[in-house]
């Protein structure tokens, strides 16, 4: 175990001491040892999943504290706590107990704020983690299943957040629930029944908060926990991917052993995430429910917004024109169906099946443990940025009223502009991103062939100026050479060589076209011969530099 020692000495200090102590005692258990010797690669973007994981743990802890005082009941009570502006107001027990947690329970407000900030962190970290997995191609074979689990986690995280946001029964959350009810009702044929079933009768009913409570503290967290475990076990089993670099191949993992270094680092990072969340929760208000007052159907407030991760759906609802059709006595509310069911349905389905779509288009069925640098998969990167920009347009529209007041704009003009931008910006982002990626690829190729520009300018004896180029470092060279070139599919054409129609030809040709679109513009890594030749040139160039001194 000489390598283990080497790392230990690198880590040195206390971690090493504790490490050795445990090492001595755990020695016998070879299974554990194998586990602890597992290696994890190192890159900051691999910690995004960890942020999600740690926020989830913070959520479980702070949420448990809140359950000790929260009363999930719609029974009407008269508030008699210490927040004066609401004293004597009739409200549900759910809202009253949330006020109590905020003003009369020790550390209650801090815990509420930790819980809510952690929820925002959780969904944000999951989303950004997803983006990192997407843009690096980490979802490719053999990790498709984990990608699907991840998609489910994202959907559940959003649902869990919305359920929690709705529990306090304040004016803001009640307004959100009312919209949710409208969306459920918009489901053709079944809508009204489903809504009646969910709410136990007319909105808001008397049962909904207690039902939501079971969902929020039991059902969804249970499923989340199970899926997160499965997710991590699979990561562990399949080993983590790594970026290309010196000594990194498809069949090894270069990084730190799980124990002790990775564990120490991960543990430390947990406390940093916890610390940052607590600090923010202690200093910055979130969801000041006391301002909103209890939910009453007769009241509304300007600037009602959901938490950020629902914002894009709210924005989609705000953008959709007021379309309705009447079919056999049933009203079909396209104005809710499209933005709240069809668009997210398409987005999440596309997300979940993306690995298979890409594999089909590219015909790439190999296993991948080395990641793509985003520039090296320009079409994928373009599609990703396109999806982000689409999402962003919807998100901005969710805050259209706040933007209108903040920048003195007309809300109608904002809405109309966004309706146009929603269709213009995403394709534009695709084209721009793809071009930028190809540009970067060309630069990478140049670097390999001609070295990097040192910034030193020389004047040659005959008066010409040249910039001195130097070969890239070995590490960078390995990164650049790690690029994975895939040729577009060459599938049968519509007719074979003899001019006879090929039965599979048409779909094959279409697929080849897609594949060409995906890979066609690729700037290939220089071949060995080209590199050889270039190395020769470069040596010559630096030689001329020396002679010119």
């Amino acid at each position: 175990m000489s390598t283990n020692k080497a790392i230990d000495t690198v880590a040195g200090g206390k971690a090493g001491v504790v490490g050795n102590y445990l090492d001595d005692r755990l020695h016998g258990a070879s299974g554990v040892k194998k586990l602890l010797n597992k290696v994890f690669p190192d890159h900051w973007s691999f910690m995004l999943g960890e942020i999600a994981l740690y926020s989830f743990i913070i959520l479980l802890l702070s949420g448990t504290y809140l359950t000790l005082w929260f009363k999930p009941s719609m029974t009407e009570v008269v508030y008699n706590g210490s927040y004066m502006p609401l004293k004597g107001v009739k409200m549900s027990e759910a809202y009253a107990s949330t006020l109590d947690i905020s003003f009369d329970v020790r550390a209650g407000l801090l815990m509420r704020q930790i819980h809510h900030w952690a929820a925002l962190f959780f969904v944000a970290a999951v989303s950004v983690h997803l983006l990192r997995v997407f843009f690096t191609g980490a979802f490719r074979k053999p990790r498709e299943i984990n990608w699907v689990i991840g998609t489910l986690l994202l959907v559940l995280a959003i649902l869990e957040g919305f359920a929690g946001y709705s529990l306090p029964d304040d004016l803001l959350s009640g307004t959100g629930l009312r919209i949710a009810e409208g969306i459920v009702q918009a489901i053709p044929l079944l809508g009204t029944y489903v809504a009646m079933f969910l709410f136990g009768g007319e909105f808001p009913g008397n049962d909904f908060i207690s039902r939501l409570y079971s969902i929020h503290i039991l059902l969804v967290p249970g499923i989340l926990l199970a899926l997160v475990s499965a997710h991590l076990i699979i990561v562990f089993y399949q080993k983590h991917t790594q970026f290309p670099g010196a000594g990194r191949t498809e069949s090894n993992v270069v990084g730190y052993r799980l124990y002790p270094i990775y564990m120490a680092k991960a543990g430390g990072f947990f406390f940093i995430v916890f610390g940052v969340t607590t600090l923010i929760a202690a200093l910055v208000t979130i969801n000041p429910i006391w301002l909103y007052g209890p939910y009453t159907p007769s009241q509304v407030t300007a600037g009602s917004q959901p938490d950020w991760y629902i914002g894009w759906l709210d924005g989609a609802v705000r953008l959709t024109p007021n379309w309705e059709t009447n079919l056999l006595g049933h009203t079909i509310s396209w104005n809710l169906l499209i933005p709240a069911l069809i668009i997210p349905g398409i987005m999440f389905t596309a997300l979940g099946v993306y690995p298979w779509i890409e594999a089909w288009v590219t015909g790439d069925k190999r296993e991948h443990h080395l990641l793509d640098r985003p520039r090296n998969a320009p079409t994928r990167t373009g599609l990703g940025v396109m999806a982000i920009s689409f999402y962003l347009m919807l998100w901005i529209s969710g805050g259209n009223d706040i933007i209108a007041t903040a920048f003195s704009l007309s809300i109608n003009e904002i809405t109309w502009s966004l309706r146009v931008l929603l269709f213009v910006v995403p394709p534009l982002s695709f084209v721009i991103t793809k071009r930028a990626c190809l540009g970067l690829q060309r630069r990478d190729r140049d670097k390999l062939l001609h070295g990097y520009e040192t910034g030193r300018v020389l004047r040659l004896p005959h008066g010409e100026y040249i910039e001195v180029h130097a070969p890239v470092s070995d590490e960078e060279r390995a990164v650049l050479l790690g690029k994975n070139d895939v040729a577009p599919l060459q599938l049968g054409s519509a007719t074979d060589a003899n001019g006879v129609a090929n039965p599979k030809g048409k779909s094959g040709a279409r697929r080849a076209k897609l594949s060409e679109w995906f890979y066609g513009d690729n700037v290939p890594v220089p071949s060995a011969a080209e590199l050889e030749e270039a190395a020769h040139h470069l040596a010559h160039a630096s030689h001329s530099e020396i002679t010119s001194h």
Partner: protein
Amino acid sequence: MALSRRHPAAVFAVLAIALGTTGAAYAAVSASTAPKQVVKSATQVEQGKSLFLEGCSSCHGLAAQGSSDGPSLIGVGSAAVDFQVGSGRMPLAGPAVQAVSKPSQYSESEIAALAAYVASVGPGPAIPTQDMLKTDGADLALGGELFRTNCSQCHSVSGKGGALSEGRWAPNLMGADGKEMYEAMVTGPQNMPIFSDKTITVEEKQAIIRYLQELQKQESPGGAALGRLGPVTEGLFLFIVGLGALIVVAVWIGAKAK
């Protein structure tokens, strides 16, 4: 009502309202002070009229009857003038979706004179008296409920204001004083509805004012309030500060590892 019963004295009573510091009821009750004020208001009305001809008549007409550039002011009352001119909305600089409030161009006595003049052309809601603005005994919780029922759909529950259609807006109320709030309710400027004493009684108006003043004073119990704009600023804060900080730490840890 007091006015119509005392028809012959209507002119005096109207002038009394116009004074700018007394309400109709007050004027009727405190008969002893009324004549003195009337005498004072007579010259005030004169002064107001000349100020009006100079600064307002181009849009509101020579007799406040209105024109294509501005509505008739007959019957808007002294409260409307005090609100509009006191908040700098009037005189309007030019065509705009909504008059913006800015420092007033007129002194307090000039505003009172303008108010007196406009009140003299037709009776309307009067500027509230100090008594009407007393909120010590007002019911804070009731004020909150009334505010959420009648006002928050435009001004938002936190009183921070909100967007209306076509570029109009309901302003932030965190800088308004009690008199402005009262006057806004009784005159209903622009898109704001009029809340007469029948829909919201004087006591209820006081309760709303007390609630708003409480909001203005309230220190945010949970820390920085992020403008009290709700989930939009919370989300922005999360991404820019919160997630930003964690990613910086992650990059730092990643860099240290090398």
